[in-house]
């Protein structure tokens, strides 16, 4: 039994009055653990809220009490995915799917597969963020940056540098189109998520913005036949970055006031 085991016992049973025989033995021989256990068991403040305050809170709540329907995570997830698929499908129907013909099966599979997995994980993370006290299997802070890194790596590994005329003119067309598609998707996303962005509106805004950006990016990946690395990085992944930035700003807006 070591000091770490005493820490573990304190974490798991903060109120326990009795430790195991081994722990007791360790405590007898370890002064610092003995002092720590005594300190952690110090009484907590006996401060109680005043009855007047509690009454006021209760009255405020009861005055506005009406039934609510609990949020359904599976339905929320399905709605986000459905919006994603519908907007991508509509956009591709409108602008055409020329990239599929020029990309190799590996490029198509890897790009669209990465986009699909990223979007699924992001939708899952958004659902978790919308429900306080959820179990977070993926860090909502790390996920957006991991997605952007993963997409960049896939592009760098699978595509090649190509000489391109009118780089900025082509890039501008893709950025404008992708951003417009992302903005189109952002409206239903906002309608779905607005009641759930409670704990960290800026983080939820960033994730939702990136999710909308991925809609635009997915449409561009299916449409745009330009396979130059720089073009894809700047004007396709750039749409995701733009979406994430816009979402972060919208999410942070209430704090500016």
């Amino acid at each position, binding site marked *: 039994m070591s*000091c*770490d085991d005493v*820490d*573990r016992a*304190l*974490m*798991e049973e*903060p*109120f326990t*009055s009795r430790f195991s025989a081994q722990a007791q033995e360790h405590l007898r021989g370890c002064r*610092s*653990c003995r*002092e*720590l256990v*005594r*300190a*952690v*068991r*110090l*009484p*907590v*403040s*006996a*401060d*109680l*809220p*005043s009855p007047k*305050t*509690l009454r*006021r*809170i*209760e009255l*405020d*709540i*009861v005055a*506005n*009490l*009406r*039934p*609510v*329907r*609990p*949020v359904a*995570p599976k339905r929320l997830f399905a709605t986000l995915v459905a919006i994603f698929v519908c907007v991508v499908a509509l956009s591709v129907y409108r602008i055409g799917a020329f990239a599929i013909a020029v990309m190799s099966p590996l490029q198509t599979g890897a790009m669209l597969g990465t986009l699909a997995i990223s979007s699924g994980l992001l939708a899952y993370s958004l659902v978790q*963020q*919308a*429900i*306080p*006290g*959820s*179990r*977070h299997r993926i*860090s*909502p802070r790390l996920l957006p940056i991991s997605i952007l890194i993963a997409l960049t790596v896939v592009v760098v590994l699978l595509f090649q540098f190509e000489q391109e005329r009118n780089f900025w003119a082509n890039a501008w067309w893709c950025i404008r189109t992708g951003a417009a598609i992302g903005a189109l998707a952002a409206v239903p996303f906002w309608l779905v998520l607005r*009641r*759930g962005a*409670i*704990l*960290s509106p800026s983080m939820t805004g960033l994730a939702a913005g990136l999710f909308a950006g991925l809609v635009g990016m997915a449409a561009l990946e299916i449409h745009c036949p330009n396979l130059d690395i720089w073009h894809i990085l700047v004007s396709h992944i750039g749409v995701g970055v733009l979406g994430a930035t816009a979402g972060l700003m919208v999410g942070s807006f209430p*704090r500016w006031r």
Partner: protein
Amino acid sequence: MRENVAAQRSYADLDHWMERYQQADPHAPAALVSALSPALLRFFRSQVANREQADDLLQETWLRIHRVRHTYRPGEPVLPWIYAIARRVRVDGYRRTRRIIRHETAMEALPEPPALLEPQNPLPAFETLVATLPDAQREVITMLKVGGLSLEEVARATSSTVGAVKQKAHRAYERLRKLLHAGAVHDSWGGAE
């Protein structure tokens, strides 16, 4: 300790009351407010120290809980849900206070301090002890001890993993050990043992 165990037992009914609250049962708010407010107030007291601010945060927390009560999922533990919201309210309160302080103009001659609204009792020992810890570690220790949350529940309330919570608690205990050894905390307790 007995009080904490009793609190744990009464927390078992919270799921039931939370569901009734969502169904607009007029008795549910009173049951929830009376069961959870003492622990929430102690949580805020250990974070902000000032009773008046802690009272404000408590009221703000209940207003927010009421506004987002649809986000509670029946069958899920109530405490992580409540503490996740309380934690957010505390962060917003901290930011608001900082913003106000930043916009305040320093006066050349300071006015006489007004009579204090509350007697300046020294903080109780546990609060004094955890006040020496960094914010994240204090939050975890307070949730474990004052809120009576399990490691899993603290992880849910802080949007992190059980491993991260364990690490924070372990670091907090290490730090407390050092402080206790150095006698720094002892001195600030006034020699309380």
